[in-house]
Each structure stands twice: as structure tokens, then as C-alpha cells.
């Protein structure tokens, strides 16, 4: 116990939380809500709200509408082409080969339009997931210095490796299993619609949902593990602080009691700073993920509606292609949400576990 107390004193004196440490996180850029990470930290220290709920709703609406407008022109081209196809193909299917040839040329153009939209969104998704994992990996060391200032070194040492391993596991899982499965299912759905007799749409759907199940299962297991180890660690904190106080008041001859009180104050202040940094991190992750997800959701909405509308007059194969596109995009959204939820859960568990649970 004495050794732990001495260690704690040394750490306390030698590692202050430097203000430029979390300015480094500004390299993660401004979220579309309009604040960088240090803005969030500063606003919480000052006490005013950086994000007002009333301002957020109009912004969300604006982003969704602009995304819908951008994609609407592409979808209207698809509409016009399938309408023309329906006009020019007569109902007496004696000319099977030629009708198929006309359909193929229209289908290729539609495939080109859809593939370019899908490529943009999948690149956005991959970069978002990588950014979130990177952000988490950079916030945790900074949190570590703050936690050390409040005697939580034991908690941090036991919890953070798990968090780091599991979050990078999540990111790698999505990159190595999730994204290739999504690409494969997308390509399969495009190719399978070439022949009018059989389609690979169901196979594509199965691959997509399997990938989503695997990723969400991994995230659930990870959250459970982290929460349980967080709960079992919180008692270390209070014990360490109490023992440090008694050690100090016993060791130091004259100023022992003074130092005891100042240790309490420093530890309390450090807890406040750690909470601020942690919650700023959670806020940042949430808002940097929210707006891209809304964009992708509006694209999914457009494609679902157009697939339903084209289904009334057009070829069934075009309907199934648009349907699969919407399904694939929602799988990508599922990955993004799973990754960000796992990061938020791990941050909050870390914050909760390293609070002083009643030592003061």
C-alpha cells in the first residue's frame, strides 16, 4: 500500500494534463455541427451549451433535403429510361432476344449511375469508421493522463488495453469482413439481374445480412465485456485514494494534513477535467457520425421510393437492382452505427469506472 501511495504522489506531481494535448485532436477536423474537439472541451469548462437542440433540427433537415436533391436527378434519369423501355417493349414476347438487348443497354446505364453513387458512399463509410477508431485511440491516452491525476491509474491500466484492442478489432472486422461482403453482395445483385429467368437477389441478401449479424454480434459482445470489467474496476479507485491520503498524513511530518486536503482537491479537479474530456469525446463522435448517417439515410430513402414507383410499370429486374442498392447502403449504415456505438460505450464505461465512487 505504501508503494502504491508513493507511486501515486509521483504521478500526481509529474503529469499534469497539458492544454495542448487535446488541441492535437483538432486534426480530426470540424464536425458538421460546427465545432472541433477543443471547442467542445472549452465550452464544457465554461458551462455554456455548444450544441443547441433547436438549431440542430433545421440543420438536419437542410442536409437531408440537399442530399435528396443531389440524388434526385440521377434517379429521375433511371425513371425516364425504364419508362421508355416499358413504352418500347410490346407485350408479345416473340422477339425475346432483341427486347433483351434493348433492356441490357438501359440496364448498363442504370448500373453505371448506381455504381458511382455506391462507390462514393462506401468510401465515405470506410473513412468515417477509420476516423472514429483513430479518434478513440487518440482520446484514450489523453484521458489516461487525466485519470492518472485522480488516482485511477489502476483502473486505466486494466481497462484501456481491452478498450483499445476491442475497438481496433471492431474496425478491422468491418474493414476485412463487412465491407468485402457488402461489395460482393452488391456486385452479385447487379450481375444476377442480367438473365430474365433466375436471379441471385436472395443470395446477395443473405450475404449482406450475415455480415451485419457478425458485426453487430461482435459489438454486443465487446460492450458486454467492457462494461463488466468496468464495473469490477471502480472500487480500485476509492481504495487507492484513501490509502494515499493516509500514507501522506503519516509520512510527511508537518504539512501532512494540509497535503491531505490538497490531494483531495486535486483529485476532485482531475475527475472533473477527465469527465469533461470524456464527454467532449462522446459528443464529438456522436456529431461527426450523425450527419453522414443522415445523408446516407436520405439516399436510401430515395432509392427505396424509386424502386417502389418503378415497380408499378417497369421491369422487375430494375426494381430488384434498386432494392438491393438500398439494402446494401443500409448495411453500410449499420456498420457505421455499430462502430460509433461501440466507441461511445467504451468511452462512457471508462469515464464511469474511473469516477471517485465515494472516497471523498
Amino acid at each position, binding site marked *: 500500500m505504501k508503494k502504491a501511495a508513493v507511486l501515486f504522489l509521483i504521478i500526481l506531481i509529474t503529469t499534469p494534463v497539458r492544454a495542448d494535448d487535446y488541441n492535437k485532436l483538432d486534426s480530426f477536423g470540424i464536425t458538421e455541427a460546427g465545432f472541433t474537439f477543443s471547442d467542445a472541451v472549452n465550452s464544457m469548462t465554461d458551462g455554456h451549451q455548444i450544441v443547441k437542440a433547436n438549431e440542430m433540427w433545421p440543420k438536419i433537415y437542410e442536409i437531408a433535403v440537399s442530399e435528396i436533391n443531389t440524388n434526385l*436527378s*440521377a434517379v*429521375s*434519369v433511371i425513371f*425516364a*429510361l425504364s419508362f*421508355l*423501355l416499358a413504352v*418500347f*417493349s*410490346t407485350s408479345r414476347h*416473340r*422477339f425475346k*432476344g*432483341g*427486347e433483351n*438487348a*434493348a433492356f*441490357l*443497354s*438501359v440496364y*448498363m*446505364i442504370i*448500373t*453505371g*449511375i448506381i*455504381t*458511382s453513387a*455506391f*462507390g462514393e458512399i*462506401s*468510401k465515405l463509410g*470506410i473513412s468515417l469508421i477509420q476516423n472514429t477508431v483513430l479518434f478513440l485511440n487518440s482520446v484514450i491516452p489523453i484521458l489516461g493522463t487525466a485519470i492518472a491525476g485522480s488516482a485511477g491509474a489502476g483502473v486505466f491500466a486494466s481497462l484501456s488495453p481491452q478498450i483499445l484492442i476491442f475497438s481496433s478489432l471492431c474496425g478491422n472486422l468491418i474493414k476485412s469482413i463487412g465491407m468485402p461482403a457488402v*461489395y460482393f453482395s452488391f456486385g452479385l445483385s447487379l450481375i444476377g439481374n442480367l438473365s430474365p429467368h433466375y436471379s441471385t437477389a436472395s443470395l446477395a441478401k443473405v450475404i449482406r445480412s450475415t455480415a451485419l449479424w457478425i458485426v453487430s454480434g461482435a459489438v454486443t459482445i465487446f460492450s458486454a465485456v467492457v462494461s463488466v470489467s468496468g464495473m469490477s474496476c471502480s472500487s480500485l479507485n476509492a481504495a487507492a485514494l484513501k490509502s494515499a491520503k493516509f500514507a501522506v498524513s503519516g509520512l510527511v511530518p508537518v504539512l501532512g494534513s494540509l497535503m491531505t486536503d490538497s490531494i483531495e482537491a486535486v483529485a476532485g479537479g482531475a475527475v472533473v477535467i477527465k469527465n469533461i474530456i470524456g464527454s467532449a469525446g462522446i459528443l464529438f463522435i456522436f456529431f461527426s457520425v450523425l450527419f453522414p448517417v443522415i445523408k446516407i439515410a436520405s439516399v436510401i430513402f430515395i432509392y427505396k421510393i424509386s424502386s417502389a414507383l418503378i415497380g408499378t410499370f417497369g421491369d422487375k429486374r430494375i426494381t430488384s437492382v434498386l432494392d438491393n442498392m438500398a439494402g446494401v447502403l443500409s448495411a453500410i449504415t449499420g456498420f457505421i452505427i455499430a462502430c460509433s456505438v461501440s466507441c461511445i460505450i467504451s468511452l462512457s464505461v471508462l469515464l464511469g469506472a474511473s469516477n471517485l465512487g465515494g472516497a471523498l
Partner: protein
Amino acid sequence: MDIFKIVVFALPSCLLCILLRQYRPDYSFAVSIVSGIIILLYALPALSNVFKSIDSFVRKANVNTVYIKTAVKIMGLSYITQFSSEMCRDAGENALASCIEVCGKIIMLALSLPIAEALFKLTEGIIP
């Protein structure tokens, strides 16, 4: 109601075809060709407005207009091939009809090759 005009025109010409078939079947074939062409000529100019508006969509959507024009060409080609092959079948020439069909398919495939090439180039760029 232009469809009434078309129906009122088409039914008597059918009647004439049947009438002439007993005496001179070649003239009945001529009547059916010409009446089919006149009906098409009546409806086609309305299509040019549709194509103009599709052009404006395509320009807004940043898709290369060449592809859309080629697709429209292919669709028109498929319809002409179908029309003429059915005419030949009506006249009893099934072999000639299938020759027209094969020729039409070949031309349509040849026309759609540039679109296929552009699609492959696009797909190469997507896969990381």
C-alpha cells in the same frame, strides 16, 4: 382524344385487308404496311418532347449524354426490328423475319459496346 382517331383509322383498314386478301393477297399486305406506317407517323412526333425533357434531366445528373442517346437509339432500333419482323411474319415469311431479328440483335450489341466499356472502367475505379 387522339386514340379515337387511330382506332377509327385502323379498324376500317383491317377490314380492307381482309377484303383484299381473298382476291389479291399482295395488295392486302401493302394496305397493312401503309396503315401501320401512318399510325406510327401520327404518334412519333409526340416522342420528341419526351426526349427533350429526358435530355435536360440527364444534363442535370452529370451523366454523359452520349450513353443516353445510344440507349434511346437502341430502343428505337429494337422497336423497328420488331415491327418489320412481325410484318414479314404476317406475310408468311418466317425465315425472313428471323433474319431481320438476328441482324437487329447484332447491330444493337455493337451499339452497346461503348457503354459496356465505360461501365467496366467505372467499376475498376470503385473497388479500393
